């Protein structure tokens, strides 16, 4: 995956509580390949397009300059629901590299970290402030520094965020989990031998 160190882009305010992964990418598109030229269009598809395929002009992601943004600022429980990793592929396909929300679906949060998308939990009031600023000033930029664990808002306000050291290290270096896990192979073999001895009924 692509490493994540620093990133600056303009933000997209998504004012939807419990924005589930079916809204991020409807299930009927899960069969499509990431290489599909239409893939970027699947993001928020049914919120963005009418049944005849025309854009809904009021939806935030259809408006300039938000449609070119690289950062989503969301509300409570972003990415709840299905485990589909496609809900991250479709962010990446649109150049969206970071999501800020008061809370995330646990599976979606993990999926983000596997694909080089930075999930940032901030206080709900801070998310509300950022979304309001993005509405007030379309194209306003937000900056991330993962090493420093900071987000800088459009007004220069700096917010610190928490992220696990493991996820941080992987994102900073663009590492994939499997090669990292293989460094622990001797621990795995020792564990499994004992586990099997203790729980022979499992094997």
């Amino acid at each position, binding site marked *: 995956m692509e490493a994540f160190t620093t990133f600056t882009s303009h933000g997209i305010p998504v004012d939807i509580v419990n924005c589930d992964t079916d809204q991020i990418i409807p299930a009927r598109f*899960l069969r499509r390949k990431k290489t599909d030229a239409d893939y970027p269009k699947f993001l928020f598809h*049914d919120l963005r397009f009418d049944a005849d395929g025309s854009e809904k002009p009021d939806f935030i992601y259809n408006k300039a300059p938000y449609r070119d943004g690289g950062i989503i600022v969301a509300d409570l429980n972003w990415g709840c629901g299905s485990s589909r*990793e496609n809900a991250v592929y479709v962010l990446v396909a649109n150049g969206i590299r970071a999501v800020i929300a008061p809370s995330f*679906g646990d599976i979606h949060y993990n999926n983000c970290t596997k694909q080089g998308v930075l999930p940032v939990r901030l206080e709900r009031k801070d998310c509300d402030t950022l979304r309001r600023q993005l509405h007030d000033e379309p194209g306003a930029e937000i900056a991330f520094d993962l090493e420093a664990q900071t987000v800088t808002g459009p007004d220069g306000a700096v917010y610190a965020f928490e992220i696990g*050291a493991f996820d941080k290290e992987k994102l900073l270096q663009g590492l994939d989990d499997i090669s990292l896990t293989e460094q622990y192979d001797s621990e795995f073999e020792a564990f499994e031998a004992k586990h099997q001895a203790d729980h*022979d009924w499992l094997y």
Partner: protein
Amino acid sequence: MAGQTLFEKIWDKHVVVARDDGQTLLYIDRHLCHDGSINGFGQLRAAGRKVRRPRQTFATPDHYTPTHTSDLSTIEDPLAHEIATAIDKNCEEFGVTLFPWGDERQGIAHVVGPEQGITLPGITLVCGDSHTSTHGALGCISFGIGASEVAHVMATQAIWQRKPKTMRINIEGTLGFGITGKDVIIAIIREISAAGGTGHAIEYAGSAIREMSMEGRMTICNMTIEAGSRTGMVAPDDKTIEYVAGRPFAPEGEKWDQAVAYWRSLPSDDDATFDKDVTLDGGAIEPMVTWGNSPENAVGVGETLPDPAGEADKDKRAAMEAAYDYMDLKPGMPVTDITVDKVFIGACTNARIEDIRAAAEVAKGRKAVVQTLIVPGSGLVKKQAEAEGLDKIFIDAGMEWRLPGCSMCVGVNGDDLRPGERSASTSNRNFRGRQGPGSRTHLVSPAMAAAAAVTGRFTDVREMKQGN
């Protein structure tokens, strides 16, 4: 030392590596795959890796298979056809045990796992599907994972996790007549919200859970993810052990005795503490119906739809207003005034034999007034139901008795609603478009769904059952 919870006891037995930063490499005893795991197999192949422990890995097609015909060549979309069939060659190539299309053991992964004895108390189990929380009803740690994690588990038989916090939800008292696990879990989500369990592993406890059947417990654990938590569990007891005994992949003989001894040690200690503790009065729970686009938007069948003005949180209020618009409903409306266009009884939430029996009890001697799909969770559930003559009850009622699969829960296999259509559905998600673009889904129990099928509207099934 303070006592340990059920979750902590199992977790501690599966820690391969505990890093100083709180990250744990957790050993995985069982990995379930389905047709949608194609991305995981693809990532594994691209990386030139093998499945590390194929004997601990099992698969069955469910999401993309049709329920009206056994002929997979009828899947018109070539990409959907590829997903529904690639599982055969993937399992052969990687040496994974497959319950293939047409085999009586095939079905929804979360029905098949417990049914085959793949799911056992005290183990860790993962699957590339968020409803993997279901399996915790047997007293194990189970959770849904994404495609990269699927590939990781295939390659390493382990997964990196941070230990979640723990939460206990006690359902005390005795459930009223006609109240099921489905009503209980929807009532819980209404109480704690769709994000109430985020970051926590939930243990369900209390007298109503102890009294509940294994099927009911599975329904509750299934929808744990709709409360934001990936892991729901119930302590193993006599009922659990009796359920597991004799299943094809369950241990036997001396190994069975060893296993039972371990399982008996698992229930949370009396002095164990949880990060959160919630108690609900089971006796106060009514048959539940969801009205909006989040499972937390729920009311009892005797209630009227809530007024958004009563919601203090402005963003939640906006979400309620948007849901009323999308669902074409109005605050203050009695639930029983809502009419439905289709009924779906099935899904990993409610496609086990007890669910099918509950629907048949209501359907018996009555006629469906709207299209009604009854989709058993596995070939074995189908066979059992047919042995009991339940298929005939449904067919006599004008309902459709289908082949096992995810069907109308997920909108990828041809079973769905047309835009604007409204369902009574025993599935687990009422999200916008979940059952097809423009679909309007109301979540209910199997008996409530059957009652809606024969009356065309939401009806308090307790009144119908008393009339039987």
